[in-house]
């Protein structure tokens, strides 16, 4: 019966995604996914039990939850405008609770318990996994590790937040203003005489070149990657270019107003900056939790009794809580800055926040 058990219970599945996907999906870890589902189940069960019968005079769990909600509400309400607050509070709260529970779930002592069970059952090669073998297969229950220790967990959250905030920004500002932000700071301002026919033709020719080049590049890329027909690039380029030209000629409602001269050289840096902010947000969470795990591993291989427990308290409880909060606050603030309207900035500059707070703080404390 013992022989039927698998020799390597770790890494039940391994999947290496094909080319375009492997830029986003960096690996697969059975333990991480198991622990993620465990966290979702735990959180759902706990919160569901806590709010099942809400009372006017709250019990202990309900009071703790109300405190947490009030705390998060203060944070969200002081950052976002009145039309977004109510929508964002559940989102930010969910992210905070999810990441927080994920950071704390590593404190469960199941690792040691499973290891002891395996040692007692005389199969230490299973390490910290509990393996149940059946005739049709096996079930592997890994010991508790933080899912945030795997980079894919924060990265997945980061992809979601990235799409959320950019789609929201496009909805709020419109595509033109959204794209214009990538070309800031502007090189200057000028008034484009769009009502004149020659201006339309000039703009149309320029946009035809740009869109045609873009289409050709996309076609060439498709051709290179998946060996499509060689004329796909030319057809795409001509079609996009003509479409852009016609759009520039006949677009009816475009009031002539002062626009900024786009700074073409700054655009790649702005685009990379947008990715870098999400990247740093995700890797901050990952680096802290992973770093704590590595340090704990190194220390506990040298010193056994007390120090690892204290370190686990520091890295698991303290750093885990602080980093979960930082992650959700950064998510909130990046989104708030991204979906902010342009008028609001001018409002900020003119309402005296800068004169009153700025000048006196620049001059130093009195």
């Amino acid at each position, binding site marked *: 019966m013992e022989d039927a058990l698998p020799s390597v219970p770790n890494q039940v599945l391994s999947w290496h995604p094909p080319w375009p996907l492997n830029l986003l999906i960096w690996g697969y870890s059975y333990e991480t996914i198991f622990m993620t589902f465990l966290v979702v189940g735990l959180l759902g069960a706990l919160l569901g039990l806590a709010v099942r019968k809400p009372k006017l005079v709250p019990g202990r769990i309900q009071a703790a939850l109300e405190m947490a909600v009030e705390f998060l509400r203060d944070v969200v309400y002081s950052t976002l405008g009145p039309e977004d607050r109510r929508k964002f509070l559940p989102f930010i709260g969910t992210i905070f609770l999810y990441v927080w529970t994920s950071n704390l779930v590593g404190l469960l002592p199941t690792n040691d318990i499973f290891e002891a069970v395996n040692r007692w059952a005389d199969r230490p090669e299973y390490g910290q996994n509990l393996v149940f073998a059946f005739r049709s297969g096996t079930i592997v229950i890994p010991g508790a590790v933080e899912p945030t220790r795997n980079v894919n967990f924060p990265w997945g959250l980061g992809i979601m937040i990235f799409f959320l905030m950019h789609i929201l920004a496009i909805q709020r500002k419109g595509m033109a203003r959204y794209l214009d932000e990538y070309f800031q700071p502007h090189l200057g301002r000028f008034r484009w005489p769009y009502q004149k026919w020659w201006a339309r033709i000039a703009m149309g020719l320029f946009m035809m070149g740009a869109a045609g080049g873009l289409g050709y590049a996309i076609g060439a890329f498709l051709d290179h990657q998946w060996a499509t027909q060689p004329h796909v690039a030319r057809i795409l380029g001509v079609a996009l270019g003509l479409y852009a030209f016609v759009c520039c000629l006949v677009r009816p409602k475009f009031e002539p107003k002062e626009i900024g001269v786009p700074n073409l050289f700054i655009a790649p840096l702005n685009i990379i900056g947008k990715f870098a902010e999400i*990247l740093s947000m995700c890797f901050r969470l990952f680096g*802290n939790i992973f770093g*704590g795990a590595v340090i704990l591993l190194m220390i506990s291989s040298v010193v056994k009794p007390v120090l690892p427990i204290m370190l686990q308290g520091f890295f698991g409880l303290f750093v885990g809580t602080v980093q979960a909060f930082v992650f959700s606050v950064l998510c909130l603030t990046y989104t708030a800055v991204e979906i902010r309207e342009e008028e609001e900035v001018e409002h900020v500059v003119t309402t005296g926040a800068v004169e009153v707070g700025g000048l006196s703080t620049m001059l130093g404390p009195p």
Partner: protein
Amino acid sequence: MGIWEQLWATGGQDLLETCQYVAGGLSVGFAAIGPGVGEGYTAGKAVAAIARQPAVAGAILRTMLIGQAISETSGILGLVLAFLLIMRDPAAIANWVAGAGLLASGLCMGLAAIGSAVGAGLVSAEAVEGIGRMPETQSRVTLTMLIGQALAQNTSILGFVVAMLLFSSGGGAGVDITDWAGTVGRAGALLGGGIAMGIGAFGPALGIGFVGSRACAGVAQNAKHAGAIQRTMFVGAAVSESTAIYSLVVALILYAVAMAGS
């Protein structure tokens, strides 16, 4: 047999193995500078603030500890990379490109950790001073401090990402340790990428630290306009961070150059 003949007797494998240990030392050594300075500065300001307002000593102490824990992040990242470098199998370094990648990762992480830890320390120092002046603004100042410190750490996180990339570069397949033709330039490219990101992360992080520290002081003085101050801090920090993004771009280009042939 002279010393050089002895060193090269194994085709330079002994010399190559020194790379990862030197890199581990560089990583944790440089990364220890910043957190020490930043956290000490915060602690000094906290002592002064408690001397000014002994009634809120608990709040000041709590804010100080949170701020110090966050400025410690870059030091922890350096320590983790040092552990990873020291614990890896020295015989697995395939060629000089891989060795240069390890050295570059240590340099990158170590240097990148200095500025952001000092910057984060500046932010938390102003935050504890602000709480000492205006204890009733504590929650808003703490929130601003967390955001400012996180912004100041962005560059060291970018350094960590580049360092992990360089750490796992592997030097390309099919290149032997004795192949000198074509590998020295690629080794130099990896080293250059590590230095670019490491040194490039220093200034922006310090600058964002200035932004965040002034923002904390401003929120403590004028808590009514905390939202406006935070937004201005965000925009200013993003502009200040742009030079670190230049460094990131150059480091990634150099990495691509080094890995292009393989």
